[in-house]
């Protein structure tokens, strides 16, 4: 409890970084309890509806129907996630809806073995009731892994959607006045793309930060920075 009362927090990171043997850094963002809980709920409802319809259909087939019902329940409960994770690139319908994906902790796609382990170990996460153990581990774990994930070495991450929308056709493009690092390029592009969301005063403020570096008059700075962003997005007029 050393620095409990007077502690300065260190940097809070939410990502996971994996370096390949070729020294390429792969980044991903693990998904937390809330979004995963919702994805689980969607999958749960799908399973429940399927079983309900099946139950109606088999209601009049006596004990044999009961048997088929139990078998389907078993298969749905345990292999529904495995099936989708292996054949649908780590996405059950619920995860797909929420934009999530299961991967190994080195960000490779999951295979049969890992998917089976993480899903069969759901019973450990269920302990003692209603996934309490799983919730606790996910809240506590840096990468929001439940027990099954820890055992199988898997992560649930946000599947990324790249958007390369232009900043708007009315903006002219202008090459950057000096060389830009990658992060700086992202900032310029963001400035151009988000001109609808940022208020005009704020845009002026941001452009004024760059004032000493820009070869234009103060009143033209916003347009100039947007033009550089447009150029970086591929605009060339």
């Amino acid at each position, binding site marked *: *409890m050393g620095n*409990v*009362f*007077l*502690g*300065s*927090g*260190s*940097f*809070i*990171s*939410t*990502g996971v970084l994996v370096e390949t043997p070729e020294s390429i850094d792969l980044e991903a*963002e*693990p*998904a*937390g*309890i*809330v*979004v995963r*809980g*919702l994805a689980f709920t969607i999958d749960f409802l799908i399973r429940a509806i399927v079983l309900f319809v099946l139950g109606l259909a088999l209601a009049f087939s006596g*004990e*044999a129907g009961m*048997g088929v019902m139990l078998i389907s329940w078993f298969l749905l409960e345990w292999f529904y996630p495995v099936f989708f994770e292996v054949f649908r690139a780590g996405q059950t319908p619920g995860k797909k809806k*929420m*934009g999530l994906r299961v991967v190994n902790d080195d960000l490779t796609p999951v295979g049969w073995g890992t998917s089976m382990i993480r899903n069969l170990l759901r019973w450990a996460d269920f302990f*003692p*009731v*209603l*996934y*309490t*153990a799983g*919730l606790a581990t996910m*809240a*506590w774990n*840096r990468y*929001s892994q439940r027990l099954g994930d820890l055992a199988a070495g898997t992560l649930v991450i*946000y599947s990324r959607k790249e958007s390369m929308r232009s900043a708007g056709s009315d903006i002219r493009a202008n090459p950057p006045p*000096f060389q*830009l690092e990658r*992060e*700086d390029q*992202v*900032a310029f592009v*963001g*400035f151009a793309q*988000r001109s609808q*969301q*940022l*208020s005009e005063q*704020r845009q002026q403020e*941001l452009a004024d*930060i*760059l004032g*000493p*570096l820009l070869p234009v008059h103060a009143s033209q700075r916003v347009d100039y920075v947007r033009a550089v962003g447009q150029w970086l997005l591929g605009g060339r007029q």
Partner: protein
Amino acid sequence: MDLSKLKFDPRLRNGWQAIDLGFAMARQWWWPSFLVWMIPALALYALLSFLLVDALFLLPIIIWWLKPLWDRLPLMMGSRALFGEALNVAATLRQSPKIFWIDLLPSLTWRRFSPTRSFDLPVTALEGLRGEERSRRLAVLHQNYSNAASWLTVVLVHVEGFLGLGFWSMAALFIPPELNVSWFALASSDGTLVMHFSNLITFAAMALVAPFYTLAGFALYICRRVQLEGWDIEIRFRHLVEKHQQPEKLAPGRKVAAWLLPLTVCMGLWGQTGDSWAQQVANQSSLIEDYYRQLDNHAPAAESKQQVMEVLGGEDFHRIEMEQGWRLKRAGEGEAGAESMPEWLLWFADVIDWLQTIASPLRDIFGGFATGFQLLLWIVVIALVAWLLYRYRNGLISLLSLPAKRKTAAQPDVLFGLDIRKESIPEDVCKRVRQWWSEGRHRDALGLLYRATLSRLVHQFAFEFHAGYTEQECVAVVSRGDNRDLSDYVSRLTRSWQQLAYAHRLPEAAQVDALCSQWQGLFGELRDAR
């Protein structure tokens, strides 16, 4: 607001990612934010449990109702910690009366049940906005994330409930079954001890979830501001300006080079005008020589070699890894030798036995249905076996070395543009070939020989060529047969033919002659024998 002190990476996040950021904050600052929430709440809890002895069931309800107040303290502390200030539990607690007082009434009445409570709280508690102003601000903030904020509330309400039930059932697990506790009677009784226990569990669940809920709402608010105000852009722009205004920091090596260049240029200029030009040049060259000598002396070859050996001898290059695990043991492997062979068979028999014991009650249940299933399964098995037999018929036939029944229809009439039908080959091939060769129709001669060979290979020796084969694939097919002379001959002939056909290089006359006479030996005889 100094964004350079920010304790997180202000990217654009979607609502869920913002919530995750809040959870990461709660993990990082767990103890301070937990304590800051719990201490005032627990104080009231203790007080009330003395005052409300007759109505203990009210206790968790009151604590729960006052949650908007408790939530303000972790929020206050988190908002400071996010900009690098120290987390100070005592100071935050001292400020609590002032913090609690902000907009007290609306928070506890009509805003108490707002699903976006934690997302809205920073506007009230940190920005201090009220009434119309507050609504306008919220309208802007709610254009994004309000959906995620509501779901955050819904999910965490459930988590809190699950956690409470989890504690209950954990407790139940520790009660021996011999005691025969009637849970229903216990839950509905109003025994004071049970009531206290139940209250405590509810309180614990609330206190455990609260920091996550509050800080997730705060993270949503912060990420929304990152979006609206472009914090990420501001940080990069400031960094860029800083970088361009500072004198360049160069690496030492580059620094020397950078100094050296203007120096030499200046020296050159002086030298041209002044008297001691030669002197200057001499100095300069000795300087450079010194530099190289230093480089050489720095690590003599022997020493660096020794260093390399040391590194190679080090632990990094001599890592021993032990791997332990269960692996299937092959029959006949290891010391058990021949005896272990039937072991897996026994095991297999055990499995079958076991399956049968399991199956017998099932069979009773399924009855006629099972027989139907069984029939179906047998049909599938038979179909599978039949299909396998059909699929691998060729392999099986050759395995049993049955005389292969060739389908004449499968034989191609034309291979790479050459007609190889039996009818198209003249009776006396060799005579015709020699005749054409002497007449100077070299291409026709060798072509005929090659064509005749292919034709015989197909019709006499029953090699299977597909219409799409190349010359070399034909050679490969022949060499797979066990007739060594034949395959040798075919490969030689093919090479000669290819050189003539594609490279326009004539073989020697003697070679053609030899090929002809060998042809007679290989194919002529056999034809007679048939």
